[in-house]
């Protein structure tokens, strides 16, 4: 049983998908991040309403042929790293992130 984690893109970020990568510009200091295909899937799904487990099940496992345990651990590590950078919000409750079109 995995802990319930909700993730949302931080409100100040700017981002764009370019081919199989996602380019993210931090809101605080304009640091630039280039996310690979798996990380990009998690990023795009980070709406604050979907749990990390659901994201892994729905978007990572089908597309990347990986076992849940491994995929989840990798995703959790990625989420921690982006949260440390201040571009991803993490909570045990649903949360609001960047506004959507």
């Amino acid at each position, binding site marked *: 049983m995995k802990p319930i984690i909700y993730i949302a893109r931080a*409100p100040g970020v*700017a981002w764009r998908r*370019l081919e199989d990568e996602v380019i993210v510009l931090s809101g605080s200091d304009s640091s630039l991040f*280039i996310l690979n295909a798996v990380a990009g899937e998690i990023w795009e799904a980070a709406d604050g309403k979907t749990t990390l487990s659901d994201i892994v099940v729905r978007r990572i496992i089908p597309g990347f042929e990986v076992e849940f345990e491994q995929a989840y651990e990798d995703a959790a590590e990625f989420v921690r790293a982006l949260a440390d950078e201040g571009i991803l919000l993490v909570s045990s409750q649903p949360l609001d992130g960047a*506004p959507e079109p």
Partner: protein
Amino acid sequence: MRDCRENLLGKAVRLGVPLKVHLDITWRCHLRCIHCYLPQRQGEELSNSEIASLLENLAGLGSLFLLLSGGEVLLRSDFFEILALARRLHFAVFVKTSGTMLNEAAARRLAELHVKRVDVSIYSERPEVHDRITGLEGSFARAVGAIRRLRANGVKVRINQSLMQSGAIDSTGVRQLAAELGADYCCNLTIIPRLNGDRSTVALNIPRNVKRAAMGAMEPTRLTEPSCGSEKLLPLEELACSAGHTGCYISPFGDVYPCVQFPLWLGNVRERSFEKIWRESPALQRWRKVRNADLTVCRACELQSVCSRCPGLACLEGDLLGPSRLDCEMAYARTGRRPAPLAE
């Protein structure tokens, strides 16, 4: 995960992504700056819905950096609506304004929408000199007030100063003012011709020896050309400029150009979608084939490595592939060595 900009830029060139877009949402302005490069043309500005479609088109093509400028952007009653849409589409938005209309509510809204930076022009630390250049009494006090409000709301601000005859020819005072206000500072040493070819503004350029002295007083990173921003968006060893490769300019009337100071008309978004113009414009395709080796004079210039040759200025001076004397002046200011065109 974290990566350098060059990878992104290389990818943008390879994929043909207009990564950086300069959109003037109006040319209307209540200031009458003596060096303004915009012609007096008026016309039917793109409507709110036309701008919305354009932004969606740009986002779909991969544009990330968006400069909203003018004219005075705050003269458009739907400015914040446009800005909010741009942010919902995940653009990194930069705004240029005179600051003269920017009240507390506007500063707060800019902060809420997480603009990356607001650029405000200050031409002198002496109010009477600044006001003489803008043609509006009290404009200095209003601009400084706006900067204070923006900073109090946590918005990053950059003061842009153009040194010119009739204005300040020394940057020290405005640099100090920027430091006091907690703003970044950027100095422009080149006054360009008007976009309609009127060269009367060029006479406002300060003498080359004064430029050289001004150059010596500043860190290189605080110097920029007027429209290129502080970062060059391309590893340009072969390409003459990022304009038209990863960047472009769109006028308030929907006309598309490679850059704001590059008068090579590519099309109008009211007649063809931006995507079609960007991908299919014959003029743009011809320009994209130009390499540094094609430049008639500059390819052999020994100052090439320190020159920020602008093809738009060269075009405004009459020859897209020729030298721009204004940039030759800058190369001289940087090095004290005289490029061939200045020796003539």
